[in-house]
């Protein structure tokens, strides 16, 4: 394919030296490096995928790099978000990332957008002259938003996604091939697919996928090689296997097969039935926010367990979280199992569904807890839809994190 733009910027003597390993390759050359300097790339997220992306694109001499993030650096980010460091814990991710990028390469410009990406601001931000957008987000609503806004504005979207030991890479470019929606017309319902925060991720995996996204961005900008348009790479780190599948443009795609002017950005949280970011006020309709869930504190849990009260304490976290820390004496049933059982029973199925719930008596007082209190509140809502009495169920405020803070200071937090 041809390069995305024909702009060329001048290189100083120092810059020619800095980029000499690029410039001596015929595929890049002086012209290619001047083109990279005149290029602009917008990164959505400066976390796992965004860290290697920002570092390598800065080092490669992309002249203008935009960062969209609203978060602050947390100690637990450092397992994979290598652009940040202990010295920047507590700072905004934008300031932390920008300082590291400019230390690596002061010749570039970093543009910071300190806000969550939303349907209200996406077209303004994406419209500020970006040649390529790179999607390094962590949730479905934002992924659909990035896709739709890119298609509408005709910008290629370099997609990367990760889960545990598995990664996906593609280039969604409605002008020349399929978009994200051609492959994934609808998101999975909330609860069926855990997030990285719930499911975990190998810390190196975003490095692998993020550097491949950076490679695709450079290829698009230089117009060299075969970009991943119409293809998706599936990477399995445990097997160290790479498999490429074909993605075709859906002639009925509601986004990339209609006139760009007709593409309207949606309420993606509604579309996906889940919040897009921590600051969101979205609540999905069938989850806990629609009903009044009673609460108890971790001190109530402690005394109920100690006094042998007629209370069943249920831990609805995932099994691997139980190994990190757990309260002794709890019944353990993961929230996705409760949700699936509820869905199944409502659809008239029984076999597996009733097995899952048979350990939870309907006549007993139930205290439900998770890590912080969200999944357990949802679980109470699900149980209330299949015959459990709301008056007998209590959500443990603050979950096991509160237990670690208030009852057992030696318990590890995650």
């Amino acid at each position, binding site marked *: 394919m041809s390069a995305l733009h024909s702009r060329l910027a001048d290189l100083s003597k120092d810059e020619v030296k800095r980029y000499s390993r690029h410039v001596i390759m015929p595929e890049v050359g002086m012209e290619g490096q001047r083109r990279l300097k005149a290029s602009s790339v917008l990164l959505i997220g400066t976390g796992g995928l965004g860290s290697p992306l920002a570092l390598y694109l800065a080092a490669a001499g992309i002249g203008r790099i935009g960062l969209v993030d609203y978060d602050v650096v947390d100690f637990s980010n450092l397992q994979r978000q290598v652009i940040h460091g202990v010295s920047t814990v507590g700072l905004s991710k934008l300031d932390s990332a920008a300082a590291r990028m400019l230390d690596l390469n002061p010749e570039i410009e970093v543009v910071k957008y300190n806000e969550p990406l939303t349907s209200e601001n996406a077209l303004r931000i994406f419209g500020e002259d970006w040649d390529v957008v790179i999607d390094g*987000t*962590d949730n479905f609503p934002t992924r659909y938003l990035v896709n739709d806004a890119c298609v509408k504005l005709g910008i290629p979207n370099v997609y990367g996604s990760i*889960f545990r030991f598995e990664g996906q890479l593609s280039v969604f470019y409605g002008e020349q091939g399929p978009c994200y929606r051609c492959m994934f017309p609808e998101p*999975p319902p909330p609860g*069926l*697919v855990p997030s990285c925060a719930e499911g975990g991720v190998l810390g190196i995996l975003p490095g692998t996928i993020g550097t491949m996204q950076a490679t695709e961005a450079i290829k698009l900008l230089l117009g060299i090689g075969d970009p991943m348009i119409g293809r998706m790479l599936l990477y399995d780190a445990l097997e160290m296997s790479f*498999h490429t*599948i074909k993605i075709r443009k859906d002639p009925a795609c509601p986004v990339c097969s209609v006139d760009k002017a007709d593409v309207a950005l949606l309420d993606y949280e509604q579309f996906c039935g889940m919040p897009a970011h921590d600051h969101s006020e979205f609540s999905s309709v069938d989850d806990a926010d629609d009903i009044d869930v009673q609460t108890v504190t971790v001190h109530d849990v402690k005394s109920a367990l100690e006094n042998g009260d007629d209370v069943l304490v249920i831990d609805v976290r995932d099994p691997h979280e139980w190994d990190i820390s757990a309260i002794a004496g709890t019944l353990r049933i993961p929230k996705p199992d409760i949700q699936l059982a509820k869905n199944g029973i409502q659809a008239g199925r029984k*076999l597996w569904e009733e097995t899952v719930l048979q350990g939870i008596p309907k006549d007993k007082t139930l205290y439900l807890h998770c890590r912080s209190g969200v999944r357990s509140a949802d679980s109470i809502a699900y149980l209330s839809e299949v015959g459990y009495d709301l008056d007998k169920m209590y959500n443990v405020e603050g979950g096991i994190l509160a237990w670690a803070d208030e009852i057992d200071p030696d318990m590890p937090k995650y």
Partner: protein
Amino acid sequence: MAKIRIPTPLRAFTDGAADIDVAGGTVGEALANLLDQHPELRAHLFNGEELRSFVNIFIGDEDIRFLQGLDTEIDANESLRIIPSIAGGLK
């Protein structure tokens, strides 16, 4: 026997198994055999008799939607894949 590759998010419902041998002459029969072996997968893959729209089944590098869907014939050493929708990246 044909094989079906199970993606990580769904392995919680296959006792952790990544590759499952399945019997059947079509994609639909192979999936039915998979669900006989692991009934908990049903809610994730099907809505009634229809494949859920976010479930992508590939034979080799080709989407069954562009072949004959669930009626696509497969031979005994075919490799099928379920491609999951995953969203992780930032956090």
